[in-house]
């Protein structure tokens, strides 16, 4: 468990203050993207494809444009054509032509819900009615819904220009990329194995499920400058991508990040933003666009469904010796599934001498996938962590002990080769072993306990921070990282710690793209790590400047001035120490205001590990699975605000449980999404989950001034496998499909009973 703040010499870090933006958020005053309004506001809506795969022969908009109240209608022809190649846009690499074609289809629609046209009107109702008047002539094509179909020779082709290295420059294909990771000698490895388990897994496409639909207000000025108000994980990404799609200079766009109602990776790209600007340009009015829930589910980026074949071998005494993995992920309509991450995470927690991983990124007629919390890792862990559980059972070993025996430590090579630096995987297993939950007895029929572990890289990237010292001795902290779950509080705590101030005397401000240096997305578990680092350095910069002022007042050299526990001190001749407050009052006379500044392109990212234990009870007749108890242990490096760290661990666990049991994209045979609402896209309610116990493990990241590790993602990785392992121990069937919904579990159970009966019959004969 987390050592107390004091024990580690911290005054603020490790405590649980009320978040600075809290009152606004419990009183309804906080402004989210959809809450913005401006004089003359128009409402934009998007017309979406009713087909999964079709050529657009023509679009007639005149009837819609003629409806009273409609001010403008746009199609892809209103956006510039862009180069069809990978480019660096902001911090991410992507194909801008494909990005643009996802925002408004060009010539072809590639999934149910693909945007075809957009319009702006004086009321949202008029806009909706006008959509019905746009006439689109489609030539319907056969939909390609699964990686299996997409990879078959002669499968219908989604993107005529798509090629890959394996198949060569002349071959049209739906396979965008093939990645391979190789180590040792597989045959050798499997020869030395006493037990080998091989299974094929299928996981369904699932959505991040943030409660706030995407939104944007675009305001285009006649001077060619535009402002976008929107809920996003990265205001600078919105700026660079929108500029590219609109063909505008990046500097001509200012993005004002509103409060954000959840993202989980899904709000790291753009959909409505450039459309709202283009409609504003055409009409001369501010244009607000918000998605319906059906639009969010049909047309924003979920994460990949996948097919994974996983073969692993171990010796009698439980040493993993070899693993062979084949994985294909649904990219959606355009390349870019997280299969690379899947490949590099699937056995990342373990030291396996002989390894071969083949990974394929495959386009299908489903929405273009976007990042979702540890993208690609949960699908992968469903495969590897259930196979490992089966091997542990074969060896008669405790699942934690099996993982400890094979677990990665400092120096263990990662899948792509580089060795780990100091990591806390083993520590998460030890924490689970000593948890009250794991020590408790699980009794009763049809009940089972399952354990699984997970790995996530975490990312670093760029952040900027400014710390202003005010004359009353308080500070304001300016950052570009949007607050998606306690960011302001955590960053203010870091600044307060360094400055020796009360956390309530540091006022955090999340600002727009013109008011702070480049700051990458609040995502990739990078914000506490990288922005926290920038804030730490900016506060140190302010302290350095304050020391100079103290030195001037005391007629000493700056290096003679010390700073301890909020007080500036100097050795000898009885000089009375000064607090920041006292010094702040004298800034004007000692050289003027003080702003501490820092930017980072953070290095030395420490990866995150989590281990989760789940108890379930299965109704053997209806095959409904109840989660009785869940505990998650995670290495967080250093918990700044333990309350929000626990929140990340609990939230990821809850999403992982939803993924495990009921969440899935359900398409019919025509490729139409049949559950595009929260009634039938079944996320857990609070009646579906127990209290979620947490064990915060703190193995500091080497090199980071506070030892912070990203905490945002890894907790979603273990749950699907942990639940599958619990079900196996409850009713004796190994599930290989996600979600493990009652119909799927019933099928598996009936299959098992069936075979049991036939065996019994055979035995009886």
């Amino acid at each position, binding site marked *: 468990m987390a050592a107390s703040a004091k024990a580690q010499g911290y005054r603020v870090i490790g405590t649980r203050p009320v978040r600075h933006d809290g009152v606004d958020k419990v009183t309804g005053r906080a402004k989210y993207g959809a809450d913005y309004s401006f004089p003359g506001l128009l409402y934009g809506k998007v017309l979406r494809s009713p087909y999964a795969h079709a050529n657009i022969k023509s679009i007639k908009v005149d009837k819609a444009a003629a409806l009273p109240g409609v001010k403008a209608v746009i199609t892809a022809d209103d956006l510039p054509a862009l180069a069809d190649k990978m480019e660096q846009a902001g911090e991410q690499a992507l194909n801008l032509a494909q990005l643009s074609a996802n925002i408004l289809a060009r010539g072809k629609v590639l999934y149910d819900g693909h945007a075809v046209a957009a319009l702006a009107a004086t009321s949202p*109702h008029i806009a*909706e009615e006008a959509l019905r008047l746009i006439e689109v002539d489609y030539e319907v094509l056969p939909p390609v819904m699964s990686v299996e179909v997409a990879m078959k020779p002669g499968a219908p082709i989604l993107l005529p220009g798509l090629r890959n290295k394996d198949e060569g420059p002349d071959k049209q294909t739906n396979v965008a990329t093939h990645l391979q990771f190789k180590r040792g000698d597989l045959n050798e490895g499997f020869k030395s194995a006493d037990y080998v388990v091989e299974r094929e897994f299928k996981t369904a496409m699932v959505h991040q499920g943030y409660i706030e639909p995407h939104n944007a207000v675009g305001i285009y000025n006649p001077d060619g400058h535009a402002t976008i108000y929107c809920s996003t994980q990265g205001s600078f990404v919105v700026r660079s991508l929108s500029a590219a799609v609109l063909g505008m200079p990046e500097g001509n766009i200012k993005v004002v990040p509103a409060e954000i109602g959840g993202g989980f990776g899904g709000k790291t790209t753009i959909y409505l933003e450039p459309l709202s600007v283009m409609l504003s340009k055409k009409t001369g009015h501010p244009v607000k666009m918000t998605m319906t829930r059906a639009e969010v589910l049909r047309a924003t980026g979920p994460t990949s469904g996948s097919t994974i074949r996983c073969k692993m071998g171990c010796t009698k005494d439980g040493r993993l010796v070899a693993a062979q993995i084949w994985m294909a992920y649904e990219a959606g309509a355009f390349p870019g599934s997280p299969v690379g991450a899947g490949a590099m995470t699937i056995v990342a927690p373990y030291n396996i001498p002989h390894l071969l991983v083949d990974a394929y990124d495959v386009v299908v007629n489903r929405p273009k996938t976007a990042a979702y919390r540890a993208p690609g890792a949960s699908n992968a862990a469903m495969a590897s962590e259930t196979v490992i559980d089966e091997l542990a059972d074969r060896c008669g070993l405790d699942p934690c002990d099996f993982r400890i025996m094979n677990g990665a430590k400092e120096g263990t090579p990662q899948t792509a080769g580089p060795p780990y630096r100091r990591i806390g995987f083993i520590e998460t297993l030890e924490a689970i072993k000593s948890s009250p939950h794991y020590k408790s007895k699980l009794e009763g029929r049809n009940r089972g306990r399952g354990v699984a572990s997970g790995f996530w890289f975490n990312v670093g990237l760029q952040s900027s921070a400014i710390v202003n010292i005010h004359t009353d001795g308080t500070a304001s902290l300016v950052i570009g990282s949007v607050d998606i779950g306690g960011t302001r509080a955590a960053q203010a705590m870091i600044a307060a710690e360094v400055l020796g101030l009360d956390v309530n005397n540091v006022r955090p401000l999340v600002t727009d793209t013109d008011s702070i240096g480049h700051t990458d997305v609040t995502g990739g578990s990078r914000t506490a790590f990288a922005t926290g680092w920038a804030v730490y350095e900016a506060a140190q910069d302010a302290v350095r400047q304050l020391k100079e002022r103290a030195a001037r007042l005391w007629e000493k050299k700056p290096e003679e001035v010390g700073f301890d526990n909020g007080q500036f001190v100097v050795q000898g001749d009885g000089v009375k120490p000064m607090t920041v407050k006292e010094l702040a009052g004298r800034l004007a006379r000692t050289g003027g205001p003080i702003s501490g500044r820092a930017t980072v392109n953070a290095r030395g990212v420490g990866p995150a590990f989590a281990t989760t234990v789940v108890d379930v009870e299965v109704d053997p007749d209806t095959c*409904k699975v109840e989660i009785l108890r869940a505990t998650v242990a995670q290495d967080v490096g250093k918990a700044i605000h333990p309350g929000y760290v626990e929140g990340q661990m609990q939230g990821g666990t809850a999403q992982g449980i939803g993924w495990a049991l*009921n969440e899935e994209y*359900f398409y019919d045979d025509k490729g139409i999404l049949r*559950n595009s609402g929260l*009634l039938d896209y079944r996320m857990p*309610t609070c009646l579906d989950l127990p209290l979620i116990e947490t064990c915060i493990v703190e193995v500091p990241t080497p090199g980071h001034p506070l030892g912070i590790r990203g905490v945002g993602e890894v907790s979603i990785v273990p749950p699907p496998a942990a639940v599958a392992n619990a079900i196996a121990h409850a009713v004796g069937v190994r599930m290989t499909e996600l979600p493990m919904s*009652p*119909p799927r579990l019933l099928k598996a159970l009936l299959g098992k009973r069936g075979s049991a009966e036939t065996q019994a019959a055979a035995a009886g004969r």
Partner: protein
Amino acid sequence: MHAINYESPKSVDEAVKLLAAHGEQARPLCGGTDLIIQLRAGVRRPEYVVDVKNIREMRRIEFSMQHGLQLGAAVPCIEVYENGDMHKYYPGLTEAAHLIGSLQIQSRASVGGNLCNGSPAADTTPALIALGAKCRVVGPGGERIVPVEDFCIAPGRTVLQPGELLVEFQIPSPARNSSDAYLRFIPRNEMDIAVVGVGASVTLDLNDDRISEARVALAAVGPTPIFAREASQALAGKRINDEAIERAAQLAIAATSPIDDMRGTAEFRRHVTGVLTRRTLAKAIERARSAQTTR
């Protein structure tokens, strides 16, 4: 949403006049938890919505042992399960009302609206059928009585003609040693639409431990709610035992014609129809046994 006109009549006559005047272009609004969603989705596009929940006659719950229950079609679910008589005499219908959606939905959704929406998955409908409930329908041509099991004719379609309004349910008072129960299966513990729902009522002859009468009804396993006649008849006069219940379960399964969809497979629905028929009958029988003291 398309433009609509809103009317809020205070009497059944006024409501029927409005509905008759606009025919296909009018749609009654009660809790709105189905209708407003359908208007937004554009699947129903009436010019007039006629809000019937301010009609006192449609909001009443009147019970007497002599006349049974008059349940206004516009009574919201929350008022159904907060009513003492409902708890005591119609626990199955009460629990069905308590299962619909969330508290927020139960505050608005009515039993009548649940039926008139014409969904095969409506939770309260099998409970009503099990109780032998009848619908009092008033139209321009006067009034008629329709058994609940005959009310729905296809998904989203009912026997109501343009201008007709479902005013109330008439439910017989419970016989001695009788009770009812409703169970449904959903994958989550709240919010979902029934994947399978089973309502049952039983009247027991406790002298020689027999079922003298029973009614079993099913939800979400066919194009409309289903009254499982054979299953019901098979129970009449049978000794209370697993064999009788199992037989009824098999006949209930035989009465289904389920489909595969995002809520479940046909195979799963058939299987769970059997499971829930057993459980619901057992629950109703248990209640009927303990009910003897209260009657």
